[in-house]
């Protein structure tokens, strides 16, 4: 139903076409995917909350969940750009493993003096990640070698180097505590903890509210600031559109969306605050997610990546340097793979030869569950993040339930297939 389906009016200008209701409908349908995904995540969480008899949302488990999956989500941010640009990167798991090994060797084995400081090592590792991305991206961008092949080679090469660095099958550790804080640390409570009012006791002598619960106030304050900023910027964007006379999504929908989002965020903040506060890695992730949302939605470079993935030739003929853009996308992927590798090593407290093994598939699955198109040009950061969390919650939930690892794979595979079928079905219906 392409070019000929809609009869064009013979005369009159474009404004003659009625637009009001159609925009509302289209806003709903274009956002349906995103909302649907978030709703799916919530449903999955509630399901596991029920089947694990409330373990899933326990503060300590939430912290675990974040710490276990953060590297997938960090790498998914880079992978989203790679896939939107029309490529794929199979090497991210191996690169992460290699960087973990490199970091461990630098900090523990090699006599580097001051350069074995965790911060210096991390920076060096991120630079090495960028170089790896550039090396792979160079062949893809300037010699037009299919990314599947280049990164498949990278996957073998860096896994090999990772194992060689660690000297065969051994692991290297323990890593310094200050480095481990990247993954297993919590932000310091600069404001100071707040103990909720002493327990209230009812007639039967049982505690009904308050149990000496201590809240991590810095977390609470940060959470409140984030939620307020979210609501404020949402409202401001909406306002601006209206002032310019453009359609925005219907007000009730906006309010419901903002309220549900805020409530959910506050609930999670409260859970974290009642444990040990915000995990450092969650903060890192939050900053990166915001950055990538901004880059993809608001910046010219983001727009160019989408254009290149949608039609590379047209993008090139519009003055976009597609080669350089491709290179940048892979450099970005390299840096994020390196960060992913650091997070894995920090969580394990040591470098192991199998670190990140197979994680490229989880990362790619997260991006596709999040609605990206394998053909390029389509995909959202938030989608990839939610896709990553869906995978993570399923891992976590099924582990608590005691589902065998083999069957976990089957379930994850089915979810990936189901999500993509849902997408294709929706697209054909539209």
């Amino acid at each position, binding site marked *: 139903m392409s070019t*000929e*389906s809609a009869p064009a009016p013979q005369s009159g200008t*474009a404004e003659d076409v009625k*637009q009001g209701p159609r925009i509302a409908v289209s806003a709903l349908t274009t956002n349906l995917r995103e909302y649907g995904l978030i709703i799916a995540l919530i449903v999955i969480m509630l399901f596991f909350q029920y089947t694990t008899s409330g373990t899933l949302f326990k503060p300590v488990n939430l912290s675990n969940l974040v710490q276990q999956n953060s590297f997938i989500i960090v790498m998914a941010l880079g992978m989203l750009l790679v896939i939107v640009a029309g490529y794929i990167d199979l090497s991210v798991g191996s690169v992460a493993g290699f960087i973990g090994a490199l970091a461990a060797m630098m900090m523990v084995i090699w006599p580097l003096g001051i350069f074995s400081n965790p911060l210096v090592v991390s920076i060096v590792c991120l630079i090495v990640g960028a170089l790896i991305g550039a090396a792979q991206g160079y062949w893809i961008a300037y010699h037009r070698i299919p990314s599947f092949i280049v990164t498949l080679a990278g996957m073998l090469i860096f896994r090999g180097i990772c194992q060689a660095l660690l000297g065969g099958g051994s692991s290297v550790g323990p890593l310094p505590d200050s480095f481990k804080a990247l993954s297993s640390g919590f932000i310091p409570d600069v404001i100071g903890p707040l103990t909720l009012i002493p327990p209230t006791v009812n007639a039967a002598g049982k505690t009904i509210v308050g149990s000496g619960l201590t809240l991590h106030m810095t977390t609470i304050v940060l959470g409140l600031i984030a939620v307020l900023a979210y609501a404020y910027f949402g409202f401001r964007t909406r306002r601006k559109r209206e002032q310019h006379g453009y359609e925005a999504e219907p007000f009730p929908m906006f309010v419901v969306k903002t309220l549900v989002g805020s409530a959910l965020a506050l609930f999670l903040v409260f859970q974290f605050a009642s444990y040990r506060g915000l995990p450092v890695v969650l903060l890192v992730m939050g900053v990166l997610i915001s950055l990538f949302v901004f880059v993809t939605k608001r910046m010219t470079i983001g727009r160019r990546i989408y254009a290149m993935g*949608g039609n590379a030739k*047209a993008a090139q003929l519009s*003055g976009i340097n597609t080669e350089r853009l491709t290179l940048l996308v892979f450099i970005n992927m390299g840096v994020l793979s390196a960060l992913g590798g650091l997070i894995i090593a920090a969580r394990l407290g040591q470098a192991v030869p199998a670190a990140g093994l197979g994680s490229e598939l989880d990362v790619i699955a997260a991006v596709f569950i999040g609605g990206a198109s394998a053909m390029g*040009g389509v995909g959202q950061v938030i989608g990839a993040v939610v896709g990553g969390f869906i995978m993570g919650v399923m891992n976590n939930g099924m582990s608590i339930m005691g589902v065998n690892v083999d069957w976990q794979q089957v379930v994850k595979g089915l979810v990936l297939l189901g999500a993509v079928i849902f997408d294709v079905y929706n697209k054909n219906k539209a």
Partner: protein
Amino acid sequence: MTSTILEMRDITKTFPGVKALSNVNLSVEEGEIHAIVGENGAGKSTLMKVLSGVYPSGTYEGQIVFRGQECHFKGIHDSEHIGIVIIHQELALVPMLSIAENIFLGNEHATYGVIDWNANEKRTKGLLDKVGLKEDPKTLITNIGVGKQQLVEIAKALSKEVKLLILDEPTASLSEKDSQALLDLLLEFKRQGMTSILISHKLNEVNRVADKVTVIRDGRTIETLPRKDISEDRIITSMVGRSLDDRYPPREPKIGDVVFEVKDWSVYHPIHAERQVIKNVNLNVRKGEVVGIAGLMGAGRTEFAMSLFGRTYGRHITGEVLHRGKPVDLSTVSKAVENGVAYVTEDRKTYGLNLIDHIKHNVTLANLGGVSSRGVIDDMREMSVANDYRKKTNIRASSVYQLTGNLSGGNQQKVVLSKWLFADPELLILDEPTRGIDVGAKYEIYTIIARLAAEGKAIIVISSEMPELLGITDRIYVMNEGRIVGEMAASDASQEKIMRAIVRGEGKKAS
């Protein structure tokens, strides 16, 4: 010429929000060539999709009666089974398979899945003879030209024992010669008693072969003209619903100084390095002037334009471009754009648009700097730019959020034009700006060109339609085999003069 082979009665097809066809009636007699004409978006293709079962029975209202039987097609398979075969504008051949493999794809002579290649090839030879194609059945599709591929499609249709052959814009991408051969073939089929439906924009072709013409406009049948009433003017009047006395908008050229000048431009083929594609081309364009480049397909016009525009074609490019007398660097697309050159491609779907993105994003793509500061896009500014150009170029869409892939050809072309107008060039190179778009939209494009020239832009129009060049340009260069072989003022040019310049080949050197 007696019985009615196909009757479509009161066909109504609705898409969400749009009535694509309303009460369309079509009656085709056995053994005739029945042309269907109408603007893009009028509903021709939708009607054919209803007929061939792409839209299955039940998704539309109305009746289809084929050879006296009412039909309820569930899919293409059903319609092909009773002999209705449609050949789409975009050919559906597999490039890396041979002619024979393509013709019998899905329909192979095989026993228990084992293909009998000898039988296939023998039958293929017979079919190729019928369509007058002298090629080895083992030749790969990718190795033959578009014209021959079209013939393979027809041979494939014949292999299905076709009773009613439907051709959707069969000559859209064919050269003049191949088009003529194809039309001759249609006439030959007619002599053998086959019925065909021809959908075409090219009214001279319709004029030449059609026994009847049905005009569709806005999803309705306007009228069916018998042979004796067929004339281009008559059809155009009926198609656009008004008489188009003038196919070209009037304009009063105000021509200034030379803006761009190309000197000794030479280009070699990107793969066959020894082949010189463009040979010492010299030309210039003035402010407010519309310059045409005429020539046959393969004359090197697109190659010239693309080599000029950021060296997007060819290698070993030599020569000089002067902008107001000073040399200017156009060696990359972004430099070309910065220096005020824009190139509107002849193939908007492949090179012009991101079809999976909406109008707004396409319009600003070539000049993102114009809607952003320090790399951050100002959404409101972008929105107003998109709406502004949508108004200026009269893009018909529900909003700027409509995907460009869902627009008709004419509106797609307006989006590409908008994109380049927003880049604010001094020189606009338009390559076949009206290819594949309908009469009404053509007029709009011409109007835009005239307006741009009046605003003082320099414009180069590359076109294979000579009347178009004569109608809208001020000066015409004639190109043949990579050389400029003639230059004439449009006022004393004629189709004949242009053809003569081409045929004479090495004629006078252009200034």
